[in-house]
């Protein structure tokens, strides 16, 4: 029995669900673009945690490989996101997403 398995799987599920929900709330309610990125990272990392826990409980390495894919893609996504944020900042000198309301109809 590995160290991960000393804690019941339901606790991991609960922790991940809570972290994921905090991430969702952050995306929905925070107004600062950087914080929103952090909240999205929190959502993805909640998933990573759960994947590793499942992977250990199922004695199956596929879940851990998936985590690497998620980490690589998340890094790419954040790189692109920060680049877009830079060009938003250059044009408007702010990272508050309330300025992003020019498109409506």
């Amino acid at each position: 029995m590995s160290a991960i398995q000393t804690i019941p799987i339901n606790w991991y599920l609960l922790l991940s669900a809570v972290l994921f929900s905090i991430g969702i709330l952050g995306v929905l309610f925070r107004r600062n673009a950087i914080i929103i990125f952090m909240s999205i990272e929190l959502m993805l990392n909640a998933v990573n945690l759960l994947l590793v826990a499942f992977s250990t409980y199922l004695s199956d390495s596929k879940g851990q490989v998936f985590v690497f894919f998620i980490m690589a893609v998340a890094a790419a996504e954040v790189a692109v996101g920060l680049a877009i944020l830079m060009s938003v900042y250059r044009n408007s000198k702010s990272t508050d997403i309330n300025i992003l309301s020019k498109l409506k109809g």
Partner: protein
Amino acid sequence: MTALILLSALGVIALLAEIFSFKKLLYPVVILGLITTFVLNLVDWNTGKTWYGMMHYDNFAVAFASVLIGVSVLWFIMAEGFFKEESSLTDHFALILFALAGGVIMVSYTNMTMLFLGIEILSIPMYVLAASNKEDVYSNEAGFKYLIMGAFSTGFLLFGITLIYGATGSFDLTTISNLVTGNSAVPSMFYVGVLLMLIAMVFKVSAVPFHFWAPDVYQGAPTSVTAFMATIVKTAAFAAFLRLFTVTFAGSAGMWIDVLWVIAALTLLVGNITAVVQTSTKRMLAYSSVAHAGYMLLALIALNQFTNSSVLFYALAYSIGSIASFGVLSIVAKSRGNDNTDSFNGLAKTNPLLAIAMTVALLSLAGIPPTAGFFAKYYIFTAAFASGYGVLVLIAILASLIGVYYYFRIIIAMFFKEAGTSAAIEVSANHKILFVITILLTVALGLFPDFIIRLL
């Protein structure tokens, strides 16, 4: 698979063009490369190759990949203006080609890992392209919103995949479907996972109530990029949706089909009704694209032997119509300064070809015979009717009547209103060829729909 390799290779060639300075040649090279890819892709028909349980290149994949690649050839002709600026030309080519490679993965995956990677390979270039007009605040806003919403829905997708993995111990679609079909002891975790994945996929195809990002992104992004998102991205997302829900989760249809029923009805009504009140034609087309997602969801809900073929036909008809209408829109908006309905006034007198191409495209989108769009809607409605969803078909027919109203507003402006200016808009030779092709294709598909519909 050939398609995937060739598309990635073309993307790398596009990047190399920057180093070895053959930028001028790149446009014809890419067009020829795409046509070659299209032909070689057809060679995979009926071979059904698989790759280590990750991808299965069945006829479904070949058909949808052909639509993606074929439409992208038309898109490249339409978007020639997007590849004018020397400094960013190779990036644009490479990003589009890599996005297309992601689309090919999305139509042929048999493993959750590939689904995730396909969606991301398609989406990340689209975030960049949506924001590619760096000085334009609208483009910035579109790119940013697209990225936040895309990453947000990816979070749901991944949480869903994880819960399904926890319940079944596998990422493989066949294994999962074998484990859960007819098995009453599936952990409830599995169903939560399916619902989360449903939300993520509905986000990606921009159906109500997860559509709110789409109009903003479509309006703010450069028109060429909008056309790409409305056609190729949407087709790929629907193919991925179908692969997941009509095969793997078909056994547990009882718990998600009602949710999808409500989503489809809402999408049809909200999409069409909101499109009516838009003043910007680009935004109107964005809402109409939301509405078209609703029609395609109808076929998914039907879940019978007509589902795949009717979605394929619909995606093809809708993509051709969208390429033509966005093409005309971008030319008109550029020369007349804005994209309101008024800017189309008198277009039939000054530019008959543009007006006819736009009319045929809009008739097809509205579903008037004898265009492709009519049969597309007809097959979707028959599929839904065959599975006993009469009420939903009724809602869809009502919604498409509303659609006729806002599409005809533009046609009336083009043919029956006087233009402020009598000067013809200059149209390049490539665009003229493109519009002739779209008119012919739309009418040909409307007259001989059997050919496509018998494929799947």
